[in-house]
C-alpha cells in the first residue's frame, strides 16, 4: 500500500517560499520535511506528516521544472508553462541567484573551470553549504560569466538586464565576474579575514575607476579589463619614491598636516617611507598580470599589516591616507596628478574597507 503517484497542479503555480529556500539550500525532500516539521507548520494547519511530505514533493517537482527557465530568467516572463505572478517571478529569480558568502569566498577569483567544480565537495565540507547548493551557485557564476563576457556596455547593467536581478545582486555578480576575469588572489591565509562584501566593494571601486569602461563606455569587456594605458601611466608614480627630494618633501608635508591630530603620529612618521614605497610599488607593478592577481595580498602585506601592528585606528588610517593623497598635489615637481588621483582614490577606499579585524 503506497501512494504511487501524487501531484497537485494549480493554474497559478503555487510556491512556498520556505520550501523554495530549502530546495535552494540543497535539502533532500526528507530533510526538508524534517525542517518544516520543526518549524511548526503542522501545528498551524492541523496537518499530518504525510501531507507535508506530499506538499514538499510537489513543490520540489515544480522547482525542478522551473529550474530550466531560471537559467535564462528572461524566459520566465514569457513562457507559457507556468502561470506565475510577476512579483513571485522576481522572488524566484532573486533567490535562485542568491549565494552564500561563505561559498563565494572560496571560489572568488578562481577559474570557473571543471577542475574547480570537482573541488566543490571539499568546499562544501569546509563551508557547510550542501554540495547541491554549491553546484547551483557555481553554475550560476559560470552562467553569468559566460553571458556577460561577450556583451558590450556596463557590466552591472548587463547582468541586471539579462538575469533580471536586483541592483545589489547584480553588483555582487559584477564583482564575481570581475574577480574571476582578473583572477585576483583571495584565498591566501592573510586575506582570510576579508569578507566577500569587502571584495565586492573593492571590485566596484576598481570597475568604476580603473577599467576601460571608466574612460570609454562602448567597448567590449569594458568593465572587466583594467585600463592598460592607465596601468602604464602608473609607472610614472615611481618618482615619488625614487626621487629622494620628492619623498622627503612629501613626508614633511604629510607630517606637518598630521602632527597633533593623532596618537599614532610617531609611528606614522617613522613608517612613512616604507608605507609610501609599498603603495607606489604596487602601482608600478600593475602592468604585470601576475602582480594584478596579487593586488589585494600586496595591499595587505605592504600597507594594512604594518599599520595594524602599529595599532592605527580606522580614523588614523583615514587621516593618514587623506593627507598622503592630498599632499602629493602640493609637490611642485610631481606632474602626474590625474593618474595619482585615479590611483589613490581607489586605493584609499579599498584600504578603508579592508582595514578591520
Amino acid at each position, binding site marked *: 500500500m503506497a501512494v504511487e503517484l*501524487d501531484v497537485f497542479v494549480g493554474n497559478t503555480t503555487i510556491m512556498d517560499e520556505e520550501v523554495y529556500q530549502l530546495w535552494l539550500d540543497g535539502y533532500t525532500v526528507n530533510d526538508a520535511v524534517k525542517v518544516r516539521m520543526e518549524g511548526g507548520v503542522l501545528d498551524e494547519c492541523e496537518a499530518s506528516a504525510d501531507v507535508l511530505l506530499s506538499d514538499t514533493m510537489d513543490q520540489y517537482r515544480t522547482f525542478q521544472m522551473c529550474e530550466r527557465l531560471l537559467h535564462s530568467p528572461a524566459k520566465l516572463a514569457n*513562457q*507559457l*508553462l507556468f502561470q506565475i505572478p510577476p512579483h513571485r517571478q522576481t522572488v524566484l529569480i532573486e533567490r535562485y541567484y542568491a549565494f552564500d558568502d561563505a561559498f563565494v569566498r572560496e571560489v572568488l577569483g578562481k577559474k570557473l573551470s571543471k577542475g574547480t567544480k570537482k573541488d566543490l565537495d571539499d568546499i562544501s565540507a569546509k563551508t557547510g553549504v550542501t554540495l547541491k547548493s554549491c553546484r547551483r551557485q557555481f553554475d550560476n557564476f559560470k552562467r553569468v560569466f559566460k553571458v556577460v563576457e561577450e556583451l558590450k556596455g556596463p557590466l552591472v547593467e548587463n547582468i541586471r538586464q539579462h538575469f533580471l536581478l536586483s541592483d545589489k545582486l547584480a553588483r555582487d555578480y559584477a564583482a564575481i565576474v570581475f574577480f574571476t576575469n582578473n583572477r585576483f588572489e583571495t584565498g591566501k591565509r592573510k586575506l582570510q579575514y576579508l569578507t566577500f562584501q569587502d571584495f565586492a566593494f573593492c571590485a566596484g571601486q576598481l570597475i568604476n575607476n580603473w577599467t576601460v569602461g571608466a574612460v570609454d563606455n562602448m567597448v567590449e569587456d569594458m568593465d572587466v579589463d583594467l585600463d592598460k594605458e592607465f596601468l602604464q601611466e602608473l609607472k610614472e608614480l615611481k618618482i615619488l619614491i625614487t626621487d629622494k627630494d620628492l619623498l622627503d618633501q612629501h613626508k614633511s608635508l604629510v607630517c606637518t598636516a598630521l602632527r597633533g591630530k593623532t596618537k599614532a603620529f610617531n609611528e606614522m612618521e617613522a613608517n612613512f617611507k616604507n608605507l609610501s614605497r609599498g603603495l607606489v610599488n604596487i602601482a608600478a607593478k600593475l602592468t604585470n598580470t601576475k602582480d594584478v592577481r596579487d593586488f589585494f595580498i600586496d595591499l595587505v602585506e605592504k600597507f594594512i599589516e604594518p599599520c595594524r601592528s602599529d595599532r592605527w585606528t580606522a580614523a588614523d588610517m583615514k587621516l593618514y591616507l587623506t593627507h598622503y593623497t592630498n599632499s602629493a598635489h602640493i609637490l611642485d615637481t610631481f606632474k602626474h596628478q590625474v593618474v595619482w588621483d585615479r590611483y589613490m582614490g581607489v586605493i584609499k577606499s579599498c584600504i578603508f574597507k579592508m582595514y578591520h579585524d
Partner: protein
Amino acid sequence: MPGKLKAKIVAGRHLPVMDRASDLTDAFVEVKFGNTTFKTDVCHKSLNPQWNSEWFKFEVDDEDLQDEPLQITVLDHDTYSANDAIGKVYIDIDPLLCTEAASVISGWFPIYDTIHGIRGEINVLVKVELFNDLNRFRQSSCGVKFFCTTSIPRCYRAAMVHGFVEELVVNEDPEYQWIDRIRTPRASNEARQRLISLMSGELQRKIGLKVLEMGGNAVVGYLQCFDLEGESGLVVRAIGTACTLDKVSSGSAPNTNTHVHPNTAPASNACNSPSKDGKEPVFGEDLPSSSGPPTPFRALPTSSSSPPPFSPSKPCSRQSSSSDTDLSLTPKTVEPKPVRCRPGIFLCPSSPTLSTDTLSLPGSGSVGCGHGLSSAPRATTPPPPSSIHSDCALLRKSVSFTEDLLLAASGMGSGGSAGKEAGPLKTLLRQHTQTALEQREFPFFTLTSFPPGFLVHVGGVVSARSVKLLDRIHNPDEPETRDAWWEEIRQEIKSHAKALGCHAVVGYSESTSICEEVCILSASGTAAILNPRYMREGCLDIGSTDHRFEDPSPPSCGFCHIPYDELNMPFPAQLTYCYHCRRQKVPDVLFTTIDLPSEAAVTGKGCLIQARLCRLKKKAQGEVNATAISNLLPFMEYELHTQLMNKLKLRNMNALFGLHIQISVGENMLLGLASATGVYLTALPAPGGIQIAGKTPGDLSNEHHILTIQKRINDTIAKNKELYQINPPELTEEGLGSPIPEPRQRSRLFRSHSESSDELSELDLSHGKKDAFVLEIDDTDAVEDIHSLLTDAPPPTGFYSCNTEIMPGIYNWTSGIQMFTSVRVFRLSNANLTNQGLNKIFTDLCENLLKSFYFKLRSMIPCCLCHLNFTVAVPEEELIQVAVTAVAMTFDKDQAQEKPAEKPINKGSSENEEQLQFPLELCADVSSANTQPSSKVSGTVSLLTPAAKLCQNQLVMIHLPGVPESTNVSSRAASVDYGSFADRCSTWLELLRLKAHTIRRGSVKTSRRTQSLAHSVSSLERCSPLPEGRSRSLRSSRSFGGSSVTVVKMTPLSFLPGIRIIKYLGIINMFFIRETTSLREEGGVSGFLHSFIAEVFAMVRAHVAALGGNAVVSYSMKECVLMENPNKNQAQCLINVSGDAVICVRETDQEPTASMTNIGQTCCSANDGAT
C-alpha cells in the same frame, strides 16, 4: 463553398535545439487543413525564427470547418535525412464560425509533441470568412453556440429552453488498429488526437443541426465524453440543453417585454424532441414526426407511446434465455405472474404499526413492473405473509433502511384507499398541465441552475445504471447499439421521474466506466416540475389566464414542496409542513443533483459530504463478470446512500445538493464515490440525531461501549452544529399546527447477521423530541462503520468545502481564486484485503487528499474549496486513482454570515440588474407559471413532500442461456412504491409491457433511483453574491512585467467572483496524449503527470488568450487516463479538458476596455496583412 480559412505563421520562439552540431534549428512550418497543406520557408539556424509567412488560404465547406481542426506542424529541415518533427498545434476553428464569438485567433501557442511535451511556441494568425448558406439541406450548423456552463450563461437571456439534445459518434481506436504495430508511438498518438478532434467536431456539428432543427441557437450545459472502449472502438458522445439565447447587451436595460427568437422556426417545431438519428437528413420544419413522437400523442406517457426506441435488435437466443429471477435477494424464482411480488426491502416486521401495511407494499418491484400504491391493492395479490417473512430474513444481511421508508410505509397504509380514488383524477389534472414537457421524448435538462421561475418543484434524485458487454462496433456509421443503450437508460430515468410525479429531469448527466469489455453506463438527474412557459412560446401568453390558480407560495421554499401526491407517495417518506410557509408539505430530507437555488433559505453553512465504498469482486470474464457487477451494484448504491444519510444527520443537515455518484469498475473491485454538498434548508424539518443501539442490552461492557460511541456521536453533532453555524430558529410548529398525524417512527440500520429484531422495539430510541436515527451495533462491521462515520475530519478553521458552484451560506466572495487539479494513485500491495480494509484505504485516500488541499491552500484562508469534483478509477488491478479538480476562492470573513439583500442584483459577481439573463417580466410570470402545478396542489391543500429517497435497483442480466435474466435486486429501494408512476400510466399493463421490453432486450441492466421532491416557484439564479468593490488584487487581462503572456484565470465555476463576464468566445474542448519512454528521467509517474497537467493548463490558457480571452469558466477535466509500465520505463496519459473561453473585466470596471480593443486592433492588423 461557404468558407475561406486563412492562416499566417508569424514567428517561433524558444524552439528546442534540433541540430546538435550548431546548437540551433532550421525550422519550417506545415499548415494543414483537410487535405490541403502549405509550407513556410525554412528559417535557418535560429531558435527564434521569424517566418512572417504569406496568408495561406483554404477554401472549404463549412461542414469541414466545423469538423476539422487546423493542423500546424513545426519541423526541422534536414538536407540529408528526413525532416524531424518538432511538434504540433491543433487549432479548433469553431469559435470563429460564430459571429458573436471571437473574430480572429492570434497568439502564441505552445508547440506540443506527444513524446517531448511542449517544445517552444509559435505565433499564428487565423481568420475565417464565412459566406452565408441558406441551404436547408445543409449538414453544417455554424453559428450555434456551445457552452459548457450548466446555467444560462451570463450576458445572455434565455428566450426559450428547448430541451435535451444528444448525439454520439463511434470509430475504431487508432491505438488498436493493425497499423499501430508498425508505426511509431508518436504517429499513433497523433492519429488518435487527430481522430478525436475530428470526432468531437463532427459531434458538435450534428448536435448543432439538431438544435437548429428545434429552433434554438445555442447549447447550454454541453457535456462531451469519450469512451475508450479499447478493442471495440472509440465513442464520443455528448448531451446538452438546446436553448434560444438572446444577448443581453450590458449596460442597457433588460428587454422586458418581448422574447425575440432570432431563429425563425415556429414554436411547435421548437418543441420537438431532438432527433435520435442524426444521420437522417432533416427535411425541414414540416416533418417533425420524423424525429420525435408526434405531437398529437403528447398526452400519452412516453413509456407506452414510444416502444420503437427499444429496438429489439438483440438476438433471439438472448431473449429466450431470460427469465425473471431475483438473483441476489431471493434465490427462488418467482413464478411468472404478471406482477412479481418481490420481497424488496422489508420494513421491520417487528414494528407493530407496520405489519399490516407492509402487505400492501411488497410488490414494489423493479422499475419496469413496479406497481403503485393505488394500484397495488387492486391488482396484486399480496404475497403470502410467510414468504415475506422469510425474505425479510434474507434481507437482513445486507439491507437497512432509513426512517423515510418506515414512515412512508405506515403513511401509505393509512392513506391507501384515498389514494385509489384520487389517483386518476390527479393524473388527469397533471396531464393537462404538463403537455409541453411530456410530448418530448426526453424532458431532460443538463442545467444545474435555472432562470428564476423555471424550477417549480424538485422531486428527488433519479438515476439508472446499466451493465453492458462491449463488442466490436462493426459499422461506425451506424452506432445503433450504443444509441440504444443510452436510449434505454434515458427511458428508465424518465419513468423514474414520472414515478416521482415529475415531468422533467434537471441536472441531468451521463457517464460510463469501462474495464476490459464490461461497461457500466450511468445516468442521473433530479426529477422536477418545471414551468412550461420556457418550453414553448405559446405558454408565455397563457400565464395571465391561469392567474387565479396561483398559489402564493413563498419563493424561497417553493422548490422544496413535494410535487407528488401526499396520499400516493411514490416511496415512503416523512412529510411535514414547510417550516417556512407552513402551508405546503415538505419532505424531511431532500437529495438533488442540482445547485442550490439562489433563493433558497439556508441556515448556517454547507459542507462537502462524501460516501466512499469499495467492494471486492472476483476476477471474471465476459458475462459472468457482468453478472457479478450487476449483482454488486444495488448493494453499493444502498451502502452509499446509507453513508450519505448518516453523514448528513451527523452534520445536522437535511438536504444534499450537487449529488454525484460515481461507480467505477476494475478487474477485481468496484469503487463507489458519492459527493454532495449538505445544507440545512430552513424550509425542511430539523434532522433528528443518531442513536446507537446495541444488540444485546444485557451485556454491561457492551453497553458501556455503546454509551461511549453515543457520546462521541452526540458530541460530533453538537460540534458540527457549531462549526457550520446551524442554529435554526426554534420551531413553533405547534402553534401553526402541523397536523400531520405522523407516527413516531424510527428507522433502524440493521447490521446483524441474524434476526434480532425483537429487542429493538423495547429500546427507547427517541432522541429529544425528534425522531432519532438509529444505528445498531452488533458486530465489528457495524462498529467500524460507525468509526468511519466519525473519521471524516472537518476542514480546518478558515476552510469550507463544497462540490456545488458556490458554498451555501457564504455570500461575499473576494476575488482570490486558485483552480487546481490533483491526481493520486494508490497501490494496494496487500493481496488479500477485505472490503472493510479497502474501504478504510479508500476513505483515507480521499480524506488525505482533502487535507492536502487545505494545507496547500492555507495562505488563502479564509477560503472555500468550491466545485470539488472527484473522479475515481481503477486503472489496474491493484491501483486506485482519484483525480480532483476544484477551485479555492477567498471570501470576506467578517461578512460571511449575511446573505445580501434579497435581490439578485448585487449578488452575482457578474450579475447586476442589466445583466440579468432573464427579463424581470419573467420573474413576475413565475407566479402565474406556477399556476398549473399549484392548482393541482391546491386541490389537496396539503400536498407535502417527504424527503423521500427512492432507490430502486433492477438488474436485468442475461446473456447466458439458462441464467436467470432479470434480476431485481432492490435494496432499500424495494420498499419503494410506485404510486404516482402508476398513476401516470393509464394502466399498468403498460408497465408490464415496458417491462417485457426490458426483459426481451436481454441486456444487463441496473437501475436505481433515488428521489426526493419539492415545489419550487422562484428564481434560481446562480450567483455569487459579492458586493462589489471588495475585490482585492485582481489580476486583469493586462500583461505583466513586460511579458507578452496574458494572465488567464481558470475556474470550474460558471462565474468569477468580482469579475464580470462580458463576452463568451466559444467552447474549449481539447484532447491530449502524452507518452514517455524515459519515465525515470522525467521524475517517475508523478513527474510525468505533473508536467503533463501543467502543459495542458498552458495549452488551454494559450488558446483562450489567442481568442482574445482572459478566463476559462466551467472548466473541467473529463478524462485523465494514465497507463504506466515502470519496468519498461514507459507511461502514457490521455487528458480531455473543456470549458468556456470568456472575456471578463473587473466588476468595477466600466466596459471591456483592454481586451476588446485589442481584438479590434488585431483584426485590423490582420486585415491589413491580408490585403
